[in-house]
């Protein structure tokens, strides 16, 4: 009985305190947003957060560029672990209610949420990265990760000394399988004798994108098995793998999504980052924000591949300069359609 009274008391007292607290508060009745960016752009990140030095950070860079060049303010919010569609929907709703335009969900998990919320706010433009969502006011940004990963595979095959390379995926989802498929194909097309060791951190848990320790452990195991080039597609977790690789003489890490050589958070390890399979999320996000600034909101689906420089292999550090001819040739073969990169392993 007193357990009840206790909780009732908790709720009541919290409420009472809140009531007696200062009168100035927030006004949550969102202003109806029409053309222009209103409050600015809002970006809802997936787990890992803005500073993951990888996927999310790529989106953030696009928005930062919009701030620099177009003077558009940006609001960020990051997902917690174990979120549901309801949490994601509420986040997007609140952003739209607060008058932000565009509202961008970063990560495929935002697909269904964007679709539903976009229908509620027809005057706001929504963007979603890595998923295709329906709606006249939705711009879906999808990337040919497998193509960039193919080039990463070519680079790995040309750089390995032990003829063993590794792939670490964050979560075994169809999205990450695209990275794996491209990488494996790139390695095999270059040198069929090379073994590719494929490991996933989690079968079915988005934690795989934030579990830095587990990626580090996995990389350690691979290095112990004589693998000397490791490509990690795991968002924030990838930092752990890069850190581990950096502690081994002669081993290379291949980064993902952002040009990880350039990331401040990884500066310490940059000499071990061979290259990165970059996803132009920043380009896409910037495009969308500027289209709204120009009152010509983008919608439909934007496909970003090697062909339109939506994905590419980073050359920072100059570690792959010696094989740039081979890489350029491989890229050309994909663009010309000579090689079709499979998106499933």
């Amino acid at each position: 009985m007193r357990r009840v009274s206790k909780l009732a008391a908790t709720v009541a007292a919290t409420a009472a305190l809140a009531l007696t607290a200062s009168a100035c508060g927030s006004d949550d009745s969102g202003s109806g947003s029409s053309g222009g960016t209103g409050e600015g752009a809002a970006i809802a990140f997936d787990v890992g957060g803005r500073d993951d030095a990888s996927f999310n950070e790529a989106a953030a860079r696009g928005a930062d560029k919009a701030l620099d060049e177009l003077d558009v303010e940006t609001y960020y919010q990051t997902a917690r672990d174990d979120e549901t569609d309801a949490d994601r929907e509420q986040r997007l709703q609140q952003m739209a209610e607060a008058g932000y335009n565009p509202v961008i969900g970063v990560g495929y998990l935002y697909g269904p949420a964007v679709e539903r919320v976009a229908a509620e706010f027809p005057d706001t433009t929504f963007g979603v990265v890595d998923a295709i969502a329906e709606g006249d006011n939705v711009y879906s940004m999808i990337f040919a990760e497998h193509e960039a990963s193919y080039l990463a595979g070519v680079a790995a095959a040309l750089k390995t000394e032990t003829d063993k390379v590794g792939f670490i995926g964050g979560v075994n989802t169809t999205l990450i399988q695209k990275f794996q498929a491209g990488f494996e194909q790139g390695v095999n097309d270059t040198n069929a004798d090379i073994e590719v060791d494929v490991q996933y951190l989690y079968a079915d848990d988005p934690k795989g994108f934030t579990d830095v320790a587990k990626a580090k452990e996995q990389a350690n195991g691979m290095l112990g098995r004589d693998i000397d080039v490791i490509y990690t597609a795991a968002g924030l977790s990838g930092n752990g793998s890069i850190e581990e690789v950096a502690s081994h003489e002669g081993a290379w890490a291949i980064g993902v999504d952002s040009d990880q050589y350039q990331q401040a958070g990884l500066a310490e390890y940059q000499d071990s980052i061979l290259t990165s399979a970059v996803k132009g999320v920043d380009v896409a996000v910037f495009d969308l924000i500027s289209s709204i600034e120009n009152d010509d909101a983008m919608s439909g689906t934007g496909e970003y591949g090697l062909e339109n420089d939506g994905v590419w292999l980073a050359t920072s550090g100059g570690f792959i300069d010696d094989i740039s001819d081979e890489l350029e040739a491989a890229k050309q073969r994909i663009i010309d359609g000579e090689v079709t990169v499979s998106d499933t392993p």
Partner: protein
Amino acid sequence: MSHPENETPRSDGEKPAVGSGGTGGGGTATGTTEAPRPGAAPSGGGLTARLKDPRFQEKLLLGLTAPLLALATAFVLICLVMTATGQNPFQAFQSMFDYGTTERSQVWIVNKAIPYYLSAVAVAVGFRMNLFNIGVDGQYQVAAFFAAVVGGALTLSGVVQIPIILLTAMVVGALWAGIAGYLKAVRGVSEVITTIMLNSIGGALIGYFLHEGRLAERNQNIVHTPDIPESSFFFTIDTGNGAIYGTIVIAAAAGVAYWYLLGRTRFGFDLRAVGVSDSAAEASGVSVKRMVIVSMLVSGAIAGLVGMPTLLNDTGNFGNNFPSGIGFMGIAIALLGRNHPVGMALAALLWAFLERTGGHLNFVGYYQEIIGVMQGIIVLSVVISYELVRRWGLRRQQRIVGAELAARARKNDTVEGVA
């Protein structure tokens, strides 16, 4: 403590009558007077009479101390943390309250609390008999997955199909938990270990079947089971500001069933008796092994329902975006709600309220992580203050009972002396 049917069994003190009744009690109980048992409910009498009863006063005192202590501690700590991080706690509370009480928020909070409550009830069934079912997380996901598969494969009318889906979920959840129960009863393996391991195995099992061409289909990057037909969705209650999930009736039914089963049946009594002392329960004729298995089955069956609000009121399928982690949330909520059916409901609502308003805090310039801090502080304050008050109460009772016994002993001596 309160009535025996409401109280949480403890490892010491305040036992239901198993020990003293069943096994013969103290040899002095030949007279008409019964030894004053701590925690015994005063029988009969109006409210005023009860208020005069010293034992009732005692309960009231203890009952009020714990929540007040918990509340004060949590509040002070939260304010300290927020002040230390340069945020104004009062404005934050104001903002949370304003936003959390809008009609849209209320609907959201209620919907969010439904699975939390079910999860807490599932955990509480175990808690009441000292079984720590950490596997609710795996149980509800495995259950929801197979229920979604069954629901997606059938096209019957809703009246038939919804019960089939619910039943599948309960049976699968019960079986999954039953593995741990069986291992505990037969092999003596700690359920803490097995349920945690079963969570991983469940994740792998779902991961295996949740593949295109196995039991799932693919829609871009989201792989999910086939959609259940529209007719098999649960009803919703439209409020004009969003719809409340009809699955709330499942949660309510589970709460009532929990209260009735544990407080009003022989089974519930046995369960709580085992929770207090399994050797005493065994001695009074309760089969502890059987109780372990049965209560794990019951806990798992309720856990199986946790995924149903999402499945039958929201997504209509089980995909790689299906919520995870609600099982662990349930542990915190059961602790906070003190295993009480109403307490857990309030705790679930409080949790949902914090989650609803946490995102909003971020919009008005606070760190949204403060919500996680608040949740942690609240659970710790509640658990610690209840434990402190319980110990204090126990010492108090011992003193009082000791004094009474001493007085009676003196009286007995006098009587014997006369004879």
